[in-house]
């Protein structure tokens, strides 16, 4: 029964993301950091959930490990669901309930966009993205980009206009986390 309920919950979340009005649902991990949202767009298997979990342990608050819901005022809304952590290379997962997570409930202005991908042995070496690179990073991970391209372009451009947008490869999360935390602290202050 648990498996069926979990599948149903996942399908409902996906349906909400595909039909919600007024928000752009970006496939991303998202945390709250000193009153602002940090959005980490990424495709399947890019390690967003692991990174979100590590940021929560570093003092951030939870918004989502799956979707950043961004509205036209640059506010990022929480889409908190149980945090799914990959427990093995065979695909099994460990789940942490939202009741065990520090969830941030209120919408927050986008504070930083972090485009990162795992690369074995990579050091955290962030570079600043251009406005176009950042906006394209959002568009490429937006759920309804094909269906609502005009709204997607516009919201992505507005959302990334003023926030610092950074990119870096990262290695193992334990190695990369201090660098990422230092970057976020420098941009946004302490969590």
């Amino acid at each position, binding site marked *: 029964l*648990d*498996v*069926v309920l*979990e*599948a149903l919950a*996942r*399908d409902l979340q*996906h349906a909400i993301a*595909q039909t919600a009005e007024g928000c752009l649902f970006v*496939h991303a991990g998202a945390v709250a950091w000193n009153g602002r949202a940090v959005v980490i767009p990424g*495709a*399947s*298997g890019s390690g*967003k*959930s692991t990174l979100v979990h590590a940021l929560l342990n570093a003092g951030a608050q939870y918004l989502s490990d*799956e979707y950043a819901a961004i509205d036209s005022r640059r506010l990022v809304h929480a889409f908190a669901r*149980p945090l*799914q952590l*990959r427990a093995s290379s*065979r*695909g*099994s*997962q*460990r*789940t942490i309930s939202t009741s065990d997570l520090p969830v941030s409930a209120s919408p927050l202005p986008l504070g930083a966009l972090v485009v990162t991908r795992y690369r074995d042995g990579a050091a955290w070496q962030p570079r600043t993205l*251009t*406005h*176009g*690179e950042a*906006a*394209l990073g959002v*568009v*490429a*991970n*937006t*759920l*309804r*980009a*094909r269906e609502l*391209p*005009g709204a*997607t*372009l*516009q919201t*992505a*451009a507005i959302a990334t206009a003023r926030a610092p947008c950074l990119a870096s490869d990262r290695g193992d999360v334990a190695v990369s986390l201090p660098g990422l935390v230092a970057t976020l602290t420098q941009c946004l202050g302490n969590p």
Partner: protein
Amino acid sequence: MLGESMTIPPARRSEVLVEDLGDEVLAYDQRSHRAHRLKGPAVVVWRHADGVATAVDLAGRSGLRPAALTAAAELASLDLLELDAVEKTSRRKWLRRVPLAASAALPAVVTPLAPTPAEAASSASLGQNCSTLPCCSGLSCQLGVCMPI
């Protein structure tokens, strides 16, 4: 070869949504469902290619004639120029240049595909294909399909 005095085909405006970001342009092609980031000379060509201007005309704006030509060929390779609007001989010359543009060392256009909802999903649920996605919690991949553990 394309001469620098040859007319650059006009930028395609139909079914292309554009967000102007100053130094860059974000373009979404509704025919191919691809998003493009135009930068440097590609922005100049995109803004000023009207079917009359040549690379020489645009050189003053982009600073370098070969760059303007290469950027125009890149845009043509992505179907962002109206090749049908130029006469047949010129069109053939443009089409010959397109493969060269695709191998440009520093492309002036960057293009990821916009994802479909299925592609954007993070993990597969009960009964879904798990050949490319991991299964959700409580499921395991059995013969390519997510099944209860």
